[in-house]
């Protein structure tokens, strides 16, 4: 039996990898993938905690999160494709008309 803390540490590491990906990478699609990694890290936490507590709430939550993530990907890719049509780039450094 693997203790709960192992799962939580793995999930925290994955989440951090996702956060670093969002902050460091410059390709909009890779940033988007990093966000998905963050969401799935959270899903791992939910499932592990749910198993540990012997309650179903966490597992149900994961299903909702996956649905929401799918919807977000659909909208996100549409926005990125539309941007690519207009500007022919997905590099977020070049998407900078507005700056303070």
């Amino acid at each position, binding site marked *: 039996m693997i203790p709960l803390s192992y799962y939580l540490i793995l999930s925290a590491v994955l989440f951090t990898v996702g956060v670093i990906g969002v902050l460091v990478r410059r390709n909009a699609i890779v940033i988007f993938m990093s966000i998905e990694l963050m969401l799935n890290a959270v899903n791992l936490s939910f499932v592990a905690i749910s198993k540990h*507590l012997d309650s179903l709430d966490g597992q149900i939550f994961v299903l909702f999160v996956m649905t929401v993530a799918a919807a977000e990907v659909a909208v996100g890719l549409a926005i990125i494709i539309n941007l690519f049509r207009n500007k022919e780039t997905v590099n977020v450094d070049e998407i900078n008309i507005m700056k303070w």
Partner: protein
Amino acid sequence: MDLVIPKIDVVSLGPELILSIAAIFVLLVSVFLPKGRKDPAAYLSLLGIFFAFVSSIFLWGNPRYSFNNMILVDNFALFFNSIFLIAAGLSILMSVNYLEEQEMSHGEFYALILFATVGMMFMAAGSNLITIFLGLETMSISIYVLAGFFRRSNKSNESALKYLLLGAFSSAFLLYGIAMMYGATGTTDLKGISEYLSKAAYLKDPMLLAGMGLLLVGFGFKIASVPFHMWTPDVYEGAPTSITAFMSVGVKAAAFAAFVRVFLYSLWNLQPDWNHVLWILAVLTMTLGNVVAISQNNIKRMLAYSSIAHAGYIMIGMVASSELGTSGILFYMLAYAFMNLGAFGVIILYGRKGEENLDINDYSGMGFKYPGLALLMTVFMFSLAGIPPTAGFVGKFYIFSAAIKSGYIWLAIIGVMNSLVSVYYYLRITVMMYMKEPVKEFAGLKWSPSMAIALIIAVIGTLLIGIFPSPYLDLARQSVQLFM
């Protein structure tokens, strides 16, 4: 194994269901409308909003849980429902001509506004973190699309991409916070969390505190509080103006509704922990918003920073964490809805395709050319600055007095000093309009009945709440006593 079918109380979801049906209907109808003439879709969605409002009124005063304790329909949720419906209704009225002029008149626009409103309602009514998360995402995904609705405009695209990436990033933090809460307390139910936390022994659990911090980050992004505000000016500037108006009122109100519900109810026993953090965030948010707004030359950007500053004022109400503070938040949100939507309405009316007139210098001399419109803008600017007899003054008065009654005198003083700073940039527009010579030719306004109605409603709301605040304050008071 027994399968228990929960009691389904459809009536309690009345406003949400009516709006969803109206939105689907709008999508269907707009297919059959001729290209570029989609205004019947707008009137249909206004009808849906009207009926949702009526059904909210019928639910008033009868708080109940429904759908297995997933949602709580109390006066708090219904008060916020009315704010969302006002925001959606006025934004739709302002959009009709705006979209036609920009050659972007599509029925989906109105349907998406309605779906976003449904998401907001679920955020305000959610009594389980699952419902709040789903509501937040329903709202956000609709708004991502709406921010990028002008699909040939680079600015609109950029605004949608920034909002999407940062919004999804922030909801991942919120979600991680929910997971931590679930791990620490064993439930995602707000009432369950609050009951668990009433046993003081658990309050120092690091997982719980980490969860609270992550929830704070997630909500902080949505209400645009410093240091999570960086997306606000860019997104507000690039999005279609009527959507900027809708976002600045609706999204902020919905995020505050969930924020108040989670922090002032579920995490009440952790109040000593989060109160200091919120104190600092409120001061930073107000100060940064007001100081940076001074140097802005684009009026949409200026109003974006001003909306950051207003989020700071509202957070004072949360720091006060008393009944007066919470009712102050509700009252302020209502006042802010009217005055901010009105200001954006004037901006929409003053611009036209290819000549948006968004620079503050474009407003010089407007008072001589269009006295009526300039008068409206003056009322909204006075209200945003908090000058009596407008709604903004009364709202600030209640929030600051709540802070003083709870003993946060310095916070109130900083708040008042901040609103003094804000007077500078709000009145700069008024000065431009009345005391400067025009710098360019005016091409004439295109008044439309729907825009006129929207502006009249906004100005009446701003003045009425400002002159006779007590009935609205009573409604706000009735709305906060009902955390069951």
